[in-house]
Structure formats: C-alpha cells, structure tokens
C-alpha cells in the first residue's frame, strides 16, 4: 500500500473556529456554504426498517458550488490566506476528479485568484464546462491512470514551479477534515437533536467521514462511524477510493472508524434510480453508494438514527455511464436488490 507524506503542518489552535451559525443574509457565496438540509428517507425505506429506525441524508448538493466539497475548499483557502501561503501572484492548483475542483474554481473566482485543476481526461463533460465557466484552467491527466494519475501529474507541475503555486492538497491537508469537524458534524448534531446513532459516509479524500466522525464522537463516543468504499479497485463510483489499492490520503486514519462497508457500482447506480423514483431526488453515484450502505446497516437495527451524506446532486452526471441502460430499471427492482443483499448476508453466516 502506497502512502504520501503529510505535506501540511498541524493546525494551530487559533485556526480552529467554533460552530458556524447561518448568516441572515449573505454578502458572498462563501457565506452560503454549509447549513444544508437533512432529509428523512421515508418512501424508499417503507416496510424495510423497524419502527424505531430512521435514515436521514444530508443534501450537500444545496451548497453554492453544488457539493460537499465547498466546505473543505473554503477552509483550506481560508487557512492558506491566513498563513500567507496563498497571497497575490499565486495560482491555486490541485488534483480533483471534479467537485473539489468546482469548489476551488468558485471560491477562486470570488476571492480573485486564478485556479488550475488537474483531472483525469474522462471526468464528466458537465464538470469540465462548469470549471471553465468559473474561469478555471483544466489540465487533463491520462485517463487510464485515474485519480491517482491526476495526483501525480499535479505534484510534477508544482515541483517544476513551486513558487508559482498554492496547492491546498485536499488529500493531506487537515483543514479538509477540520471543515467537517466545524460544520458538518455540528449541523448533524443539531439537526438530529443529538439523536444520531450511526454516521455513514463514502470515502474519497476521507475528509467528510474523518472530520464529521471526530465531532460526533466528541459529543457521544457511542456513535458509530462507518466508511463506505467501492467493493473493487475497478469501479465506476466517481470520486470514491478503494483504499487498499490507492494512494492513501494523509488525513485518513482508519483506526477512527468503527466499520467499513463495501458497495458495488451496480448497486449504487440502481440506488440512484430508486432515489429518483421513490424520493424525488436526483443524486450522483456516490450518494447512491452512501444510501446502499445506510440501508444495509439500518435494516438490521432494532432502534437507531442513521445519518448519511449525499455529496452532490445528479445533474453533473447525466452524460456519464451512470445512466447507461437505466430505462430498463423498474420500481420492483429495489425489492430484488434488497433480496439479493439478504442472500449475500445469509451466504456469509
């Protein structure tokens, strides 16, 4: 297993702010980041969960940049500016399969800094267009190398011209998980009135599950923190990482997790269709994966409040493989999908 070194120094106490309270009105889109709604998933779970079990999804697509990544992007740039690492004349650069790139591009436009983003050439068309609309410059890495190829190319570009760039380095910057410790975690605690018992989140950089998990554990150590990852290195869950075969982010601390749940690409895609047709909510494939794991977990509970994160909405993926063959999907397929999980569960016991 390969690791990359921790490039970001530890955060100082004065860089950790308190809970963020929603602004009454906003002077900048940056003030609109966070405070996303929590939706109880009720129609899709009907007849599957026991009466005292509920599943809630935090709808991160409501952030101004359209994803959960607005939170870490804002925090990483805030700290970069405060430390003087990001200063006039610098170009913001990072590797991103999409959503972090969009968040950096949006914030860069707001604060007046140019942004360059390295991503695999097969990132979705919509996302490339959005980045350009914010004035950012995309740099494409070899698509066969995936997100790790983008990480390596970005490192090379920065190494060749270190003075030119400020690299937030979302995979190794503790400000990434801190953003969730300061915002996502407190919001979930407040929105569930402290009733949350399980937190389930997909892993890309791992910032969401690490930071939110850390906050929730600080409030109640009995809350279970569960990470969701693809079931195979060869997968189609854009933005997610199969850790055992990937460059492991420096901010990922597996010992802080209570469990990890693998999800297949096919199950995640089917759950995206189900969420559209049962709940009237169009999300991306990582939300499908999060929901599969939340449902698998919750259906075995006698009592509990499971909270998961839907990292973004689905409009950015309409041209991607996610929607190949979806017309054949029918509502009955959800029951079939869940029966299939039962068979697998029985097979392993």
């Amino acid at each position, binding site marked *: 297993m*390969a690791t990359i070194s921790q490039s970001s120094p530890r955060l100082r106490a004065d860089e950790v702010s308190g809970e963020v309270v929603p602004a009454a009105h906003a002077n900048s889109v940056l003030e609109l980041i966070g405070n996303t709604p929590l939706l109880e998933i009720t129609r899709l779970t009907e007849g599957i969960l026991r009466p005292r079990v509920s599943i809630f999804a935090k709808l991160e697509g409501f952030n101004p940049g359209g994803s959960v990544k607005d939170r870490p992007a804002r925090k990483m740039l805030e700290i970069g500016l405060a430390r003087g690492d990001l200063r006039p004349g610098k170009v913001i650069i990072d590797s991103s399969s999409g959503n972090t790139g969009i968040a950096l591009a949006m914030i860069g436009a707001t604060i007046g800094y140019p942004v360059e983003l390295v991503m695999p050439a097969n990132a979705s068309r919509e996302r490339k267009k959005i980045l350009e609309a914010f004035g950012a410059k995309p740099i494409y890495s070899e698509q*066969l*190398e995936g997100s790790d190829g983008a990480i390596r190319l970005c490192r090379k570009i920065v190494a060749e011209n270190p003075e030119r760039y400020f690299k937030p380095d979302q995979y190794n910057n503790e400000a990434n998980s801190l953003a969730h410790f300061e915002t996502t975690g407190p919001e979930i605690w407040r929105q569930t009135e402290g009733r949350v018992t399980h937190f389930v989140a997909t892993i890309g950089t791992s910032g969401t599950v690490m930071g939110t998990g850390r906050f929730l554990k600080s409030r109640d150590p009995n809350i279970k923190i569960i990470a969701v990852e693809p079931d*195979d290195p060869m997968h189609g869950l854009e933005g997610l990482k199969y850790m055992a075969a*990937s460059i492991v982010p420096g901010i990922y601390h597996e010992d802080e997790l209570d469990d990890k749940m693998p999800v297949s*690409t*096919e199950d995640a895609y089917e759950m995206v269709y189900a969420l559209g047709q049962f709940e009237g909510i169009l999300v991306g494939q990582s939300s499908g994966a999060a929901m599969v794991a939340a449902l698998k977990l919750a259906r075995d509970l006698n009592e509990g409040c499971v909270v998961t994160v839907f990292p973004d909405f689905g409009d950015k993926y309409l041209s991607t493989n996610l929607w190949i063959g979806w017309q054949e999907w029918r509502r009955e397929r959800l029951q079939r999908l869940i029966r299939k999980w039962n068979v697998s569960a029985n097979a392993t016991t």
Partner: protein
Amino acid sequence: MPVRVRVPTPLRRFTAGIDEVPADGDSIRSVLEDLERRHPGMSERLLDEKGELRRFVNIYLNGDDIRFLNQLNSKVKDGDDISIVPAIAGGRS
C-alpha cells in the same frame, strides 16, 4: 489476430503491473475471452453475469467507444488498438 490492449491501473494486478498486453481475437468479445485465458480474473471485472459489458466500463477500439460501434461484437483486425477505461478510476501509485 494479435491486437494491443491498454490496461487501466485497477486491472494491472492481473497483468503483473504491465500497462499494455497482447491478445488475440476477431471481435472485442473474443479478445476479452483471450485476455481472461492469459490473465484470469479480468473478465469478471469487465462483464456482468449475463456476459454484457458492465455499465461503468468503457472499451475503445482505435479510439472509438464500442457502444457506438457493434458493442462486444465489434470486429477487430490485426494491429488494432484497444483501451479499457473505467468510468472513473482509482489505482495504485
């Protein structure tokens, strides 16, 4: 017919880390069957239980997506260039 197949990072565990391997066949399907013989375990990642291409896998024949050709029945000829590309990939450094 010998063709060249470019292998994405997540599948290189089946090819001893090699990024481009030879294979034989006169269609994409037969090339994949040959790849499975040479590198066992690969086809399960590419094809579903019905033998169809998994939705998140793209295969390009000389740069063209086979979904816009004749799918797995697309004909290949000597020296063709085939790339297997996951919809989005992780991988090993």
